[in-house]
């Protein structure tokens, strides 16, 4: 009972924790650990460590590792010809942001066109869908609506550009960026060239605090709006 010391405790620590010491040894161990601060502390630390390690999840296999191993042993693999695996491989692309955004834009465009041309989707008749009818109804309203919506889009752009320039440090939020972008799609095919060349502003480009820049921007936009209104509302008259 007397020759149990710190070295002995260390030596038998794991056996003690795993409960494989004889009763007599276990009793001596406990007595020592209870009265020796260093050993008492060590027992706690190692017990905690073993517990933590056993609870630690195994790391995930890097996704490319298994294909690499198979290729390095069996050689390049032929593509899986199995039906469902191939089919599933394609599914994710439908959920990619570009695709989803595109689909939403197309749907929105159809709705806007129907609405602005005076066609209610609920009251659609087959005759309404004949090209001549669609064209006739559309022709009446499209010019006005287009001019208004084009101006609206430009206003949005100008507000957006001013905001990004006045807060150069603010991270341009990706949610804002697509806002002007879907609009060109909703325009009728007769987009005027000036409008087309002016693509949506990029929030990321040089965020200068320069007031002159802001002024020129406002000026440019004002000119564009006027241009759009002129082209949209009144037939281009000879000077």
């Amino acid at each position, binding site marked *: 009972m007397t020759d149990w010391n710190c070295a002995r405790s*260390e*030596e038998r*620590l*794991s*056996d003690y924790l795993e409960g494989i010491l004889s009763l007599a040894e276990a009793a001596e161990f406990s007595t020592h650990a209870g009265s020796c601060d260093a050993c008492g502390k*060590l027992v*706690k*630390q*190692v*017990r*905690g*460590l*073993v*517990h*933590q*390690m*056993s609870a*630690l999840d*195994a*790391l*995930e*296999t*890097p996704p490319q*590792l*298994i294909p*690499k*191993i*198979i290729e*390095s*042993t*069996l050689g390049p693999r032929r593509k899986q010809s199995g039906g469902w695996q191939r089919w599933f491989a394609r599914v994710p692309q439908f959920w990619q942001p570009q695709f989803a955004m595109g689909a939403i834009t197309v749907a929105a465009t159809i709705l806007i066109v129907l609405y602005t041309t005076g066609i209610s989707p609920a009251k659609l008749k087959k005759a309404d869908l004949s090209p001549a009818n669609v064209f006739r109804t559309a022709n009446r309203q499209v010019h006005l609506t287009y001019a208004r919506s084009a101006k609206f889009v430009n206003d949005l752009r100008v507000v957006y550009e001013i905001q990004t320039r006045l807060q150069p440090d603010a991270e341009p939020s990706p949610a804002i960026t697509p806002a002007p972008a879907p609009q060109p799609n909703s325009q009728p095919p007769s987009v005027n060239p000036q409008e087309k060349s002016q693509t949506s502003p990029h929030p990321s480009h040089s965020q200068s605090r320069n007031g002159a820049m802001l002024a020129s921007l406002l000026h440019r936009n004002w000119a564009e709006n006027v241009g759009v209104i002129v082209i949209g509302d009144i037939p281009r008259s000879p000077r």
Partner: protein
Amino acid sequence: MEPDAQLVQGCLRGEGPAWEELVRRHTRRVFNLCYRFTGNSTEAEDLSQEVFLRIYRTLASYRPAFGAFPTWLTSVTRNLLVDHYRRTRRDRLTDSIEDAMPKLENKQSAARTPDKLALLSELSAQLQQGLSRLSPELREAVILRDLQGLDYSEIQTVLEVPEGTVKSRINRGRIELARILEEMGLRPQN
């Protein structure tokens, strides 16, 4: 689920799918062992590939009588890890000399930051750092026992040392690791 021994038989008959299944089933264990030992995911991936290449070439020599397939796989992995450790020892010695030179300190410590995988959880990362400071003998014993969950007799087979040696390495490894972690300021809680 087919037992490993049947998959091995399939492989020896030249069945590709049997081999693929065997690889799929055991890659995670091999990768984890390599990662815990080296502390580097790129090295661990390369070594895992090497392990399976060797298994693939020597599969015909495997007999279930030698022990379960995972034990054999672990032995092969461990031997490759030891080879790799010896191979790269010279590099590590050079590194530690450079560590002593203050001018290179920044560059070295940048190269030494534990990679992304280790940062999955803070505990995992700290443990990884602690493990890398253990001698390879103690490190492998602790990893096999406490992270891979092998029992003493399996570890004995893998390390090819007597059971008493296995036990004392595990015990010393745990105590040293606990002290290293304490030095690093990590307090294990129950």
